[in-house]
């Protein structure tokens, strides 16, 4: 007999026996691993947000931003699992982001003095990345179909080429033709990014 649903453990962390397993899954950007990491840190981040004098509603946004920085640092190898909890690392990023936000709003939480380096580093990195994402989105719109779909499916949605062909998500019927088209589209995208950079002088 299966256990009633309300009796079972309501946590996204059930799949991960220890932190090492969790970090391995986080490197793959596994949704459940990310949810588990956020689940473990939510209350700590909320308390930091409060201590920085920010409204509770900002918790979700800061938690998500810190998670993005965390995932990137993990992908870059800046965070290596050496026995420390990944949650502690995420909370530290969230603290820096909260402090940067507090500073931007002209608040001066006591915590600010104890930050050893400019707290805005993560926030600035995140801003730059978000701007890049928005620019790419704008350029993909201009590129139009089928390039936008071909690039989006592979680079953003994470579809495998076999799946794209099997589901008929693009007009291409073979993996080879899809790859050729994508490579061609990426060149066009880079070219339009270059034109855009020149026109905006950024």
């Amino acid at each position, binding site marked *: 007999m299966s256990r009633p*649903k*309300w*009796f079972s453990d*309501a*946590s*996204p962390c059930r799949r991960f026996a220890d932190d090492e397993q969790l970090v391995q899954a986080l490197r793959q*950007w596994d*949704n*459940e*691993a*990310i*949810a588990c990491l*956020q*689940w473990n840190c*939510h209350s700590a981040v909320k308390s930091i947000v409060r201590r920085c004098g920010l*409204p509770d*509603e*900002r918790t*979700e*946004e800061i*938690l*998500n931003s810190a*998670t*993005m920085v965390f*995932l*990137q640092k993990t*992908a*870059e*190898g*800046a965070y290596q699992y050496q026995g420390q909890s990944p949650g502690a690392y995420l909370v530290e990023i969230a603290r820096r982001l909260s402090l940067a936000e507090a500073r931007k709003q002209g608040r001066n939480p006591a915590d600010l003095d104890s930050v050893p380096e400019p707290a805005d580093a993560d926030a600035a990195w995140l801003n*730059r*990345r*978000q701007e*890049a*994402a*928005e*620019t*790419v*989105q704008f*350029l993909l*719109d201009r590129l139009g179909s089928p390039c936008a779909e071909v*690039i*989006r499916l592979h*680079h*953003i*949605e*994470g579809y495998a080429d076999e799946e794209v062909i099997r589901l008929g998500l693009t007009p291409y019927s073979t993996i080879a033709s899809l790859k050729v088209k994508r490579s061609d589209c*990426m060149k066009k*995208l*880079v*070219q339009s*990014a*270059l034109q*855009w*950079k*020149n026109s905006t002088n950024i």
Partner: protein
Amino acid sequence: MEELDKYLSGQMSDEERPAFEKRLAEQPDLQAALLVREGLQQWRIERSVAAAAQLRKGYERRARRQRRVWSGLAAACVLGALAWWYFPKSTNSALPPSPPVELPADSIAPQPPAPPSPSSGPVIAERQASPGSFSPAPNVRGSENEAAASQALLDQLWYGAYPPASWQPDEELAPADTLLRQRSFARAYVRLQRLEMRRPDNDTLRLMKGYCLLEMREGAEALRYLENLEARQPEWKAYLQWHRGLARLLNGEQAAAVQEFRVIAAQAGHPFAAQARKALGVLEKRK
């Protein structure tokens, strides 16, 4: 491109990195390629984080329900223990037994049940008392009971229409509007979530977020946004009716969804009348 991936994933050696960064500073085409790579990567991260945040919220709702069930059970146990402790004592007290008293017939008539205590009442009683409340409603996305049959049913009658007729979001909402039109829901969600902090009472934003959540298969959350808008924005009535129906269906409230679809199907000029009739046909066959 391989070199860029190596740079972005921190796999360049200490010798390679400065040389690459020097070239990066000199070559605008390399800068453009880096911008594209970073943008795509960031987009993918945001998508994963938004999906994971939704998953976590589903677990949080479930944990809250569990806590309510356990508190109800604990309260019932405490009350039971108190009753067991108190009543045997009072009946076995040293007082002389009272003479039997003839009670008038109406005094033993069944009494109406006492109203449930707001703090310790069992969950089931709370839900019956407020059938219109959707906060504890089940979350279809990611839940274990999302059967293949329900999914097939949704796929058959799903029709999320965006944008609504004569739709003009303001400048600040325009990027999220574009994302919704492109069906980039996770990214639109992140943006709307950010905007909502500043503009929690904006009806246009609420409608956009409701629609976005609906497409992310978050029925209960979508309903929270799509409800109560009609009173303030009567011109959205038809659009809201149809999408509320879908949200209720996602939420497992099939009878309420059918009710909503019937109202739509009965109006000849309703823009979603054909979809509602189709939905009613599909749901009828399923019975």
